[in-house]
């Protein structure tokens, strides 16, 4: 076996589980340390470099980082990464002086962005400082896309969104509000050098069952209904409401319904709870507001009497799983749940009736554009796609990641370079040793449990649709939560020629990560020699070059390393060192490699 190549940025990047899981690779441990030091503005700016909307995402992100968090493998609950992001956003000072600025002298390239959602705004954010002239087409009168019209303001106050969209637009984007694009050809005819389609997946799915169209005034499509609530076209709803579907849109619908006068709100799901698409915390928040969640009910028909919706009939299902994991259901009985209104929140589709089929953009059999997964380029080299418009509904943080990637492509394309020749990822590794037993980070382990978000009292919440439910963490909670972070970006870096095989690191490691053993021919063989055999094979094992005295190898299972630095403290020769890993992500414009690393 060859020794692990830690000069490849991917190895240490993968050790930083949260950053690896985040589509935009936000440098989570570094921004948490900045919060711990009270440097909120710097924390915000570090966040913004990757995810562009820290205030929005600190309230609404799907948090792929949290299930990945190493802390969750050690004491069950991950660090509250998402809500710490909000802390940085809430407590920041005026950061506008530190934002990138667009140069006076433009580079002569004009880019059109369709839709002013997170994907397009990210592209604008990356291209404006490079001198591109950016025009954004938005059908509504305000920017934000689904962040504005589909996320209720009790979860995301408008001010937060206005600020973060403003940072980008104020760099000098030309905004065409109220400009519903009905023809891509017309946009291309304006002579843009490239067009980015970030128009989302705006078409809510319908449910074709008997009775669906018998009382259309009382059956709503989820995302359209949320938009209507946002624009105050809808200000009330009937007392008994059924929501069909159990994703995050369904959670927003049921909680909005509670605020518009509904008293009896039920969310009805086809499958059992573990198959729900909604994030667990959104389910918890809905249940806290006394929304009833009903499992294993498949919609059968809407019961309409004398032209008025009076209930919905369901097949009550029992699910079985065979050995291969395939699910089958049997109908136990039929049940009618009385209701006055139904909201369908069963998914969204893309719709591109406004893209002419003769523009050289290839569409597949599902009428979706064929888009390269890395470059975001369509078969018309001038036209790029990102966000939900590219491959269907995902979430905001994915849209941001798409925006960054597409901006690189558009930049390469406009400069006449090959969009497939993308700048590589880089890294900085910097020892954090200050002196004997002194590190440039807090390596102590805090055994505290995850802090619980404070919520507005139930009685106050329903007075106004705009009352924000989550109050943010208190100062004490912030202090505790930041210290739960294990600093996974402070890497245990091993230098085999220095090792004298004294075993000190192995003896002191609190989580039995280390082993010195004979070299083995394969990783599977090596894994059988670990001090504690790994169950979690998703985590890599590191193995060194042959050690000088016995030719054995140092092996480290990364799975539950606390990054406490004790191996390095007990190492007499500094063969182990703690080194700050800083991922250098490629960005549109410059190669990223000469940037200053993030501060510890």
């Amino acid at each position: 076996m060859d020794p692990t190549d830690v000069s490849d940025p991917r190895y240490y990047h993968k050790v930083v589980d949260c950053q690896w899981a985040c589509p935009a690779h936000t440098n989570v441990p570094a921004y948490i340390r900045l919060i711990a030091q009270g440097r909120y503005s710097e924390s915000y700016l570090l966040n913004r470099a990757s995810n562009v909307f820290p205030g929005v995402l600190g309230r609404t992100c799907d948090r792929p980082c949290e299930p990945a968090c190493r802390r969750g493998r050690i004491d069950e609950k991950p660090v509250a990464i998402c809500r710490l992001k909000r802390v940085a956003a809430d407590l920041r000072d005026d950061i506008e002086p530190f934002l990138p600025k667009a140069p006076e002298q433009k580079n002569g390239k004009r880019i059109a962005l369709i839709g002013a959602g997170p994907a397009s705004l990210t592209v604008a954010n990356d291209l404006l400082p490079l001198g591109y002239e950016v025009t954004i087409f938005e059908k509504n009168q305000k920017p934000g896309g689904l962040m504005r019209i589909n996320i209720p303001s009790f979860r995301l106050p408008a001010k937060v969104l206005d600020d973060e969209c403003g940072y980008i637009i104020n760099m000098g984007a030309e905004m065409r509000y109220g400009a519903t694009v009905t023809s891509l050809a017309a946009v291309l005819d304006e002579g843009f050098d490239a067009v980015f389609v970030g128009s989302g997946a705006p078409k809510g799915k319908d449910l074709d069952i008997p009775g669906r169209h018998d009382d259309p005034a009382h059956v709503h499509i989820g995302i359209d209904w949320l938009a209507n609530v946002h624009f105050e076209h809808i200000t009330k709803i009937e007392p008994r409401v059924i929501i069909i579907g159990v994703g995050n849109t369904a959670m927003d619908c049921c909680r909005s319904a509670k605020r518009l006068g509904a008293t009896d709100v039920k969310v009805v799901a086809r499958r059992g709870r573990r198959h729900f698409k909604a994030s667990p915390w959104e389910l918890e928040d809905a249940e806290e507001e006394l929304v009833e969640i009903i499992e294993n009910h498949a919609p059968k028909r809407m019961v309409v009497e004398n032209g008025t919706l009076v209930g919905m009939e369901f097949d009550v299902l029992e699910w079985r799983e065979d050995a291969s994991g395939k699910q089958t259901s049997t109908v136990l009985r039929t049940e009618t749940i009385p209701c006055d209104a139904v909201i369908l929140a069963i998914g969204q589709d893309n719709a591109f009736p406004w893209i002419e089929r003769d523009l050289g953009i290839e569409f597949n059999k599902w009428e979706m554009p064929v888009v390269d997964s890395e470059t975001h380029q369509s078969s018309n080299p001038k036209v790029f796609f990102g966000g939900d418009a590219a491959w269907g509904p995902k979430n905001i943080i994915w849209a941001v990641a798409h925006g960054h990637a597409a901006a690189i492509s558009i930049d390469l394309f406009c400069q006449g370079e090959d969009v497939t020749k993308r700048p590589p990822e880089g890294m900085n590794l910097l020892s954090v040793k200050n002196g004997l037993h002194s590190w440039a980070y807090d390596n102590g382990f805090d055994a505290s449990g995850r802090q619980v978000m404070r919520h507005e009292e139930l009685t106050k919440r329903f007075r106004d649709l705009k009352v924000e439910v989550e109050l943010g963490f208190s100062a004490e909670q912030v202090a505790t939560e930041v210290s739960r972070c294990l600093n996974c970006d402070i890497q245990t870096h091993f230098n085999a020629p220095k090792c004298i095989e004294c075993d000190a690191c192995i003896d002191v490691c609190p989580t039995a990560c280390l082993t010195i053993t004979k070299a083995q021919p394969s990783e599977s063989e090596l894994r059988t020699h670990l001090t504690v055999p790994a169950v979690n094979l998703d985590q890599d094992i590191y193995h060194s070059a042959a050690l000088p005295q016995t030719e054995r190898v140092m092996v480290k299972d990364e799975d539950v390393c606390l990054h406490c630095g004790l191996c390095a403290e007990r190492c007499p020769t500094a063969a182990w060192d703690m080194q700050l890993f800083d991922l250098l992500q490629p960005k549109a414009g410059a190669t990223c490699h000469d940037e200053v690393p993030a501060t510890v």
Partner: protein
Amino acid sequence: MTSIAKPVVAHPRLKTNALGLTLRDYEGGMSTLCAGCGHDSVTAAIVQATWELAIEPHRAAKMSGIGCSSKTTAYFLKQSHGFNSVHGRMPSVASGAAAANRSLSVIGISGDGDSLSIGLGQLSHAIRRNVNMLYIIENNGVYGLTKGQFSASADIGSKLKKGEVNEQPPIDPVLLALSVGATFVGRSFSGDKQQLVPIIKAAISHRGLALIDVISPCVTFNNHEGSTKSYKYTRDHDVEAVEADYIPVCEPIEITGLTGGSGAAGNGHAGNGHAGNGQAHTAEASSLRVVQLHDGGTVRLRSTEPGYDPTDRASAYQHISACQRRGEIATGLLFVDESSRSMHDVLKTTSTPLVDLTHDDLCPGTAALDKLMTRFR
């Protein structure tokens, strides 16, 4: 020293022993020794051995004197009894503890200064007396606490950090022990837990004094070029004379569950053919010897040197001194004699811990005194 206490969390899948305890439960306080000190590895080996033997922590007593080595009793078995005695006087205090309570596993930790200089007489007499205890000498050839002068175990020709050469002959604790009647003598290396852990397990189970000389390099004052007690020198000159494997008296199935890779599990069944009638055997056409210990466990000894017999005191002495002349360090469980009598047998000590004796037992009355007195008239 470290800047932080060892985090309380452990690996979530750490195994438990027969008492339901993990390895972490056998640890002690955080070491304040130099980073890379061999003594910390000996500590870890003791933690491993006592965990594998499933010793109840409150049934162990840790005894020590003065020196770097003697600090280490604070770093394992935090729930056990302990006594830090006067320099070189640990054997006396340990003898007292062993005499007072036979049910304790007495673990004495000493160093080459504590045992071979100031405490040499104490050590010799504890061996003669065959006190029922484990006696580990953490041997690094220098006085670490006073900044690295030669100790009594320094080899002729060994160099100090600043170049001084030792010209006096060393006291080899293994040869000394054999010459004063030791019944269990081993030598090992702090950097080789695969060898050390089974020897410690057998030593704890031995009835009588079990002496283990552990080469435990002083990383600060005696780990340089020219030292004969450095990690490198020891690795280059270590010759294993006997491989030892301790097999506890347990259901074989439990053994498999308990031993976390020390090697005993794999050999648990093979040894059964030889064990059983309490004496050493020489297996035909093999260098394997199986010695049954008083606690019922067995120790399997496989000589790796042709003709070496770890149950023959004279040949053991001869072999070890021959190795020494060649500049080699003979390691392994070098000698064991389970037929000898321990201090308890010789002194006919009570099997009841003194603390549990009643007033009537201690003061049997005038009639008993008179009976005793008649013996001396």
